[in-house]
């Protein structure tokens, strides 16, 4: 029995959505455990022994049961809509990620472009939240967010375009196929530099320490989500982690060969997941070892170093590919 294409996409979307939500919950547990180890702590332990495996569910339940407080002077419409506007693009980025050949919601021929475009949209929800809360901390955070996204989306996109050039395609499955011989992270010079730029830009795009100036709880308390509580806070949190995991999947796909790996083909999605989690842990590792830098320093790093460097890298890659021919990796 073959399903009509639309039904197939809908079914896949349903499966991916639920799998992602479950995965995101457990990624938070992974991060907490990982951070705890770094800080010589144990981390969640008592909720679901051993090692607190029920903690994410307990957290979600707690947030659902919490009172939803709306500040009296908030712009209610904007305030209430913001978490959803924030969450949707964060989930939507999974639409173009294939988890194995032919296994994904939609393997668009402009997959990478779609991912990059949609992932930048989260800023709209973020700014709405910061503005609608009518709180000075939230407002400052929203301003910083816009600043940062504008600065770091450019190097993020340029770094992501290097593998695209090397593979000669914007389609995600084609990029993975091009890494059959050599993962792009191992591609001499271009691949490695692009991977470094990608990880740095990812940290900024995901608002992680050392670039987490929007959240900056020691200055701005909690930034744009300072006034959110209960389920709305949960949605923002969910969106943030979904975005982070999605970017990790993109990194694994662009640089680490996606589902390629030893063993039978059905192990592919598993390999992909392992690689994405590795990228996620790399980002987490950086997060829990650095201090946050200042907003002007963040902008200086981006405009004075990362943007010119990534443009040069992209140009050099383009020249290299033009002389060698696409897909030569």
């Amino acid at each position, binding site marked *: 029995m073959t399903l009509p294409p639309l039904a197939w996409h809908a079914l896949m979307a349903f499966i991916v959505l639920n799998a992602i939500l479950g995965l995101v919950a457990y990624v938070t547990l992974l991060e907490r455990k990982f951070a705890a180890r770094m800080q010589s702590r144990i981390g969640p332990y008592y909720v679901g022994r051993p090692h607190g495996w029920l903690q994410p569910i307990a957290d979600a339940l707690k947030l659902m049961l919490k009172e939803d407080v709306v500040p009296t002077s908030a712009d209610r419409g904007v305030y209430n809509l913001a978490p959803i506007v924030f969450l949707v693009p964060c989930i939507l980025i999974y639409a173009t990620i294939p988890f194995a050949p032919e296994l994904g919601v939609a393997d668009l021929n402009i997959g990478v472009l779609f991912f990059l475009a949609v992932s930048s949209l989260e800023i709209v929800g973020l700014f709405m939240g910061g503005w609608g809360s009518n709180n000075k901390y939230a407002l400052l955070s929203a301003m910083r967010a816009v600043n940062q996204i504008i600065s770091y989306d450019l190097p993020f996109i340029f770094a992501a375009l290097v593998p695209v050039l090397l593979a000669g395609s914007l389609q995600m499955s084609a990029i993975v196929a091009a890494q059959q011989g050599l993962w792009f992270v191992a591609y001499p010079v271009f691949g490695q530099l692009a991977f470094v730029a990608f990880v740095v830009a990812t940290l900024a795009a995901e608002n992680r320490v*050392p670039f987490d100036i929007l959240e900056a*709880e020691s200055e701005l308390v909690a930034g744009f989500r300072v006034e959110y509580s209960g389920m709305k806070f949960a949605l923002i949190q969910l969106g943030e982690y979904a975005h982070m995991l999605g970017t990790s999947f993109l990194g694994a796909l662009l640089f680490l060969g996606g589902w390629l790996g030893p063993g039978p083909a059905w192990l592919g999605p598993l390999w992909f997941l392992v690689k994405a989690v590795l990228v996620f842990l790399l980002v987490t590792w950086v997060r*829990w070892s650095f201090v946050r830098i200042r907003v002007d320093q963040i902008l200086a790093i981006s405009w004075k170093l990362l943007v010119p460097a990534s443009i040069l890298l992209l140009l050099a890659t383009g020249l290299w590919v033009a002389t060698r021919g696409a897909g030569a990796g």
Partner: protein
Amino acid sequence: MTTQTVEIGYGGSERLTMNMGPQHPSAHGVFRAVLTLEGETVVAVDAVIGYLHRCHEKLGETLTYVQYPSIASKTDYVAAMTSELAYVAAVEKLGKIEVPKRAQYLRVLAAELQRIASHCLWLGTWCMDMGGALGGGATVFLYCIRERELILDRFEELTGARLLYGFHQVGGTRYDVPAGWDTKVRETVDFIEKRIDEYEAMLEGNAFFLARARGVGVISRALAQEVGVSGPLIRGSGVNYDIRRAEPYSSYPDFDFRVPVETAGDCYARYRVRMAEFRESIKIVRQVLDGLPEGPISSRPGVKSVGQVRVPKGEAYARIEGARGEVGCYLVSDGGPKPYRMKWRGASFSNLAVLPHIIPGHKVADVVAIMGSVDPVFGEVDR
């Protein structure tokens, strides 16, 4: 305190008044700073204190010389040993009470261990101010708390308390060293000394940390002397001033230590001074343990009644070098069992006065970094 507001004209853009504190993750207690912002830049600071005022000085007049030392520890609760010491030192000066050599050495030991513990907490909280509770700062914080815990354990073995000790009493100390305690203290400081190297490697090899600390919150030598800051702040601004040297008390001349001085005056200089002080304190602790004389721990009999200690009419000011700077206690006696008037000179209070001079012109993020580098404890500011 008259709050001084320094404004810098940036011209043009709209100003935003933002309240930082008294309830704020990096308020270090209950400090409230009313910031005037132009974009991200702070153009004016209005510092508001007094949220933790507990009438300590009035309380000191209602309690006897025997009772107050254990309350004195509640002024600077992060370094409780030093405020107790300042009070009993003032009483001893007033009453011309001798302190046995062993007690003097024990006081130095307690003060230096307390300095290590206090600096541990400072390093952790300062990094948390810069790195966030969900980031690298929290990692340093938890490491530092882990080390501070060891010293608190030693204090617990010595006095039975972990935060507010009641270790000092007029004429000496209340407790003597338990058996085998000195070996444990040696192990503790050996361990902490190794860990301090790790923190230095972790922080000074980190470009982001340096970017946040270098050139931020510069206190010039002239400003430091004019405002009257003390402790690591004035030593970070190039003034070689340490009461342990300038006006020695409790047998400090017996020990060989260096007074670290940095000239830059920024947050990084203050950090360097405190990191060097860790090592100097450890050095002093070892010397005390090596040379601890035998003998009584107090020149007065044990406490039988609260009115036991009486001092002649007069007044006295005693000052000691606490972890945060000069902790002073001024006493006026009318010959009774209680002081007629008591006044604290809190190191944090005087150090905090420098904030409105140095914050304007910095970004919001620097405000917390500068405040953390001042290391205020609000129990001591408000008293």
